[in-house]
């Protein structure tokens, strides 16, 4: 009777990273302190657009405890903040300077910095810095006439286009055309932990350190080294616990560069912790787009062509992602449907608002809303059901891999696997769609404003191209996995630990996962765009497989048994056909492989190995979200009564964590659908700078969600079959809730703008009366 080890991949194990967090022993950026450190406070522009005529720092310098005050002149030698992917010639002049020079372009833009002995004195000093700004007319609407960013430079920094096929021909011969004007509001990640950066220079080793890194430490190291003229071997980034990433945390902002330069020049560690008001004015915002979209369809509702022109309200500067969201918007809009011909034209416009960049599911939250609104409108126009119009357009399982001449993140679109219609059937059955329609109809007849909606979506994940990892077993049998990944709270250590333990045969609880430390591993892709599990876990699997092979080879000699007859489970090697026979632990094998151990023979020392994983293309998970809502006729407020999320993740390493990702994402998606919106007045003054004005859903607002997690379509593009999960919960929430709200209102083409605030819905209801 051969013994087979229990699989560890696929188990909902409790998280490796939790013990310090639940005991209050975590370390976040604000917990990092160094002896003799200074505190930095940023003086920010109080106006949205102006000519910066002068900065008077004299009074601040007089304050006891203030060590230095810098303006643009003091950092004139610094390069503006680079794009993450390097030089983009056309956008070079639009990069944000570290401190504003000549012009200020949004409220909150850093103009000066004060360094002082404590955070209180630093803020007192910042109060004393006097700014002389000549106010200029701000641009507050991406659709208004373009202005001049700087002499000779338009505020339309770029136009992005993608498309294929004969769009005009399709429209000319269409059975029907449907057009919509749709808006997605400005909202963003707003993690519980604000940004933070601590710069420190170790002159003895000539190493410059940035503590409080997140998301992409290795990429940022390259950018920062380039900007500061250092080699990457003398610049290191350190990630600690991160209280939420969501895309906006861990990008390079002016403050990251300032603490590093100050640490070098002032020869003291420099700490900066963002406060919440600064966060709401200065950290990346996202989403804000307006789409003018049309579809040409045949009699059955088939999408002959989609034509989309959109305005992307980028805010004051392009920031590190440059055009990525606008380009993704073009490439991903068609989603899970056949589209005969397609054209997208995006106006990438700079306005005098906080700059935008990626927020969890960038380009998808927006386009899922646009595309699914369009399908609802087609269904209404042709008098067919909202389910049927989707069904007739869905890409079929047999067509996989399905290629489309578009690109997302500079990767040609190629859907790897999926049974979209199969998942649709499963989710309709799970929610009892037909019975639901009947009961809603009855409730509406009784005067209730209730409805159901659905949204189908494709996610994209696992953009490579390459990631590596190192696995090492010490003589106690503790396994260290060194990765260049990052943990933003998503359970990275757990997932990596499970994959390593499963492949190697180690004890899961004895795996330690290193991430976010650039001095431990030369390369790393970090954690963004739902790629950590796809890329890093597959690299770890490769490394773990090599370590396993080496362990079995050594053990085979020690146990006098052919390696093929050996098995490893929980760190113990034994004969598969005689589990109670002779055994040896991984720690003992590691001991036998020490450099001085005679047992090692000709083998290389150490029970360790590197492993690499290369991917050719992204992978494309997919799902459906179905909502049931009720509207209060008095206030226009929406209550979500029921919500179902069906998602095919290919293969779930830890189903509990996948559910966690889905539910957390849903809560944020609900925020963008109903509550959250960064508003500005006509002067560009931000109106949503506290949690009393920027409304994030709380426990009281987030309803229970049913999750239907499927593994029907593992990815053929990696050995573990993994697809990403990080953005699946949030991506179509605005789309699904809008669909349900419009069903509740029983009026079509009226739900056009997210978030669906009570006043916007009340205005629609009032419109019915008049």
């Amino acid at each position, binding site marked *: 009777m051969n013994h087979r080890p229990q699989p560890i991949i696929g188990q909902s194990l409790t998280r490796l990273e939790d013990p310090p967090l639940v005991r209050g022993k975590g370390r976040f950026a604000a917990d990092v302190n160094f002896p003799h450190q200074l505190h930095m406070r940023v003086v920010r522009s109080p106006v949205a657009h102006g000519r910066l005529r002068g900065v008077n720092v004299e009074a601040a310098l007089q304050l006891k405890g203030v060590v230095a005050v810098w303006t643009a002149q003091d950092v004139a030698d610094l390069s503006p903040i680079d794009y993450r992917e390097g030089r983009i010639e056309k956008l070079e002049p639009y990069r944000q300077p570290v401190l504003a020079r000549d012009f200020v372009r949004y409220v909150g833009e850093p103009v000066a910095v004060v360094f002082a002995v404590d*955070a*209180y004195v630093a*803020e007192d000093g910042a109060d004393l810095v006097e700014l002389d700004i000549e106010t200029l007319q701000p641009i507050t609407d991406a659709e208004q006439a373009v202005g001049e960013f700087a002499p000779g430079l338009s505020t339309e920094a770029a136009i992005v286009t993608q498309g294929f096929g004969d769009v005009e021909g399709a429209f000319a011969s269409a059975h029907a055309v449907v057009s919509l004007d749709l808006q997605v509001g400005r909202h963003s990640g707003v993690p519980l932990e604000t940004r933070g950066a601590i710069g420190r220079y170790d002159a003895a080793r000539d190493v410059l350190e940035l503590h409080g890194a997140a998301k992409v430490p290795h990429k940022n190291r390259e950018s920062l080294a380039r900007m500061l003229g250092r080699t990457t071997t003398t610049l290191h980034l350190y990630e600690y616990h991160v209280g939420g990433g969501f895309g906006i945390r861990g990008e390079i902002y002016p403050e990251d560069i300032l603490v590093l330069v100050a640490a070098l020049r002032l020869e003291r560690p420099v700490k900066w912790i963002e406060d919440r008001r600064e966060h709401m004015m200065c950290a990346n915002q996202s989403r804000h787009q307006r789409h003018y979209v049309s579809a040409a369809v045949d009699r059955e509702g088939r999408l002959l062509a989609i034509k989309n022109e959109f305005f992307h309200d980028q805010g004051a500067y392009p920031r590190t992602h440059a055009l990525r969201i606008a380009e993704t918007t073009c490439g991903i809009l068609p989603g899970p449907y056949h589209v005969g011909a397609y054209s997208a034209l995006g106006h990438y416009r700079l306005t005098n608002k906080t700059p935008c960049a990626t927020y969890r599911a960038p380009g998808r939250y927006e386009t899922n809303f646009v595309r699914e609104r369009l399908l609802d409108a087609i269904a209404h126009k042709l008098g067919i059901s909202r389910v049927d119009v989707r069904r007739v357009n869905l890409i079929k399982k047999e067509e996989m891999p399905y290629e489309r001449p578009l690109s997302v993140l500079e990767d040609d679109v190629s859907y790897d696997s999926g049974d979209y219609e199969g998942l649709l059937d499963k989710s309709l059955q799970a929610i009892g769609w037909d019975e639901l329609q009947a009961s809603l109809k009855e409730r509406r007849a009784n005067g209730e404003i209730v409805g159901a909606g659905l949204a189908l979506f494709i996610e994209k994940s696992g953009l490579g191209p390459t990631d590596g990892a190192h696995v090492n077993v010490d003589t106690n049998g503790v396994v260290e996995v060194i990765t260049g990944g990052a943990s933003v709270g998503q359970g990275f250590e757990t997932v990596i630990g499970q994959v390593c333990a499963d492949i190697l045969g180690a004890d899961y609880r004895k795996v330690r996962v290193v991430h976010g430390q650039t001095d431990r591993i030369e390369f790393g892709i970090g954690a963004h765009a739902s790629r950590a599990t796809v890329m890093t876990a597959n690299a770890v699997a490769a490394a773990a497989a090599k370590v396993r092979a080496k362990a079995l080879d050594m053990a085979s000699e020690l146990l006098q048994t052919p390696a093929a007859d050996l098995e490893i489970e929980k760190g113990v090697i034994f004969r598969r056909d005689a589990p109670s026979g002779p055994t040896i632990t991984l720690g003992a094998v590691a001991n036998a492989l020490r450099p001085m151990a005679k047992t090692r023979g000709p083998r290389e020392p150490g029970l360790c190995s590197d492993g690499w994983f290369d991917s050719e293309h992204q992978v494309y998970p997919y799902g459906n979200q179905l909502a049931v809502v009720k509207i209060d006729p*008095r206030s226009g*407020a929406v209550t979500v009564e029921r919500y179902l999320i069906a998602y095919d993740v290919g293969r779930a390493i830890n189903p509990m964590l996948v559910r966690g990702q889905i539910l957390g994402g849903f809560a944020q998606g609900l925020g963008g659908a109903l509550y959250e919106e960064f508003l500005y007045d006509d002067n560009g003054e931000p109106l949503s700078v506290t949690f*009393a004005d920027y*409304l994030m859903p*709380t426990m*009281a607002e987030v309803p229970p969600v049913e999750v239907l997690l499927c593994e029907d379509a593992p990815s053929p593009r990696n050995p573990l079959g993994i697809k990403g999960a990080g953005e699946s919960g949030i991506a179509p929430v605005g789309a699904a809730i809008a669909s349900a709200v419009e069903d509740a209102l029983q009026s079509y083409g009226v739900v056009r703008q997210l978030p669906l605030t009570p*006043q916007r819905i009340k205005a629609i209801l009032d419109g019915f009366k008049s």
Partner: protein
Amino acid sequence: MKPAPFTLHRPSDVAEAAQLLTRFADDEVRILAGGQSLVPMMAFRLARPGHLIDINGLGELAQITQSDGAIEIGALVRHNDIASAEIEGATGALLKKVMPNIAHHPIRARGTICGSLAHADPSSEWCLSAATLDAVLLARSATGKREIAARDWFTGAMSTSLQADELLTGVRLPVLPEGTRFGFQEFSRRKGDFAICAALVVFEIHYGVIEEARIGIGGAEDHPRRIAEGEAVLKGQRPSAELFARAGAAVAAALDPMEDHSTKAAYRRDLACDLVEGALQEAAR
């Protein structure tokens, strides 16, 4: 979000607190009780008191006392204290109904009723209650005591007739007779948010008709107040859905609602109409 420098004082009795107020009256002196509004304002540096007088050591202000048909709530009584307090008559039940609508548990555990009255946020549930019940606010200065009727207390949004040298030591509420009906409804975007509009209604029914009607509206105008036009609709009438709808409409017509970037005046007016109607139906049940 670090406050500007200030000097903290911890008086040992009310008389000393009043003396400190007089002494620093010209230097942006502020009282610290629960601190749930003041401390965040100081963190934003929107409030920059030179002197802060912490009254949390004054146990004499932490009492709820009842005598002669009135209830007196001291300046250190926290919102949550209402839940466990034994307060006579319908007043007790009314306060217990209103209280959970204030913000969130941690804020209710620390914030004080008198602090809310002194802060005078237009949306404050306690300001609405004080206005509707014609509370009397009790002020104390180094030179003496003063009683201020609720209708004279509010002078605008976050503005009261309390003088710089005066301490609000308590608030007096009438004990409503047993059998008094009341209803409270508010609308806020999320649970615990500031109400965009709130309605508190109180009446008695004698021989089948409404007497002693009070309708208070909060959140809509710059301070809460009773709306006589709505009360007049109810007086001497038999309760009915039609009557309540008319009262709501009368209230809405009498309001001059605030308008700001996020909320239109007309939206608040419509809400007031519906909330009054709903609160009256609730009271009549």
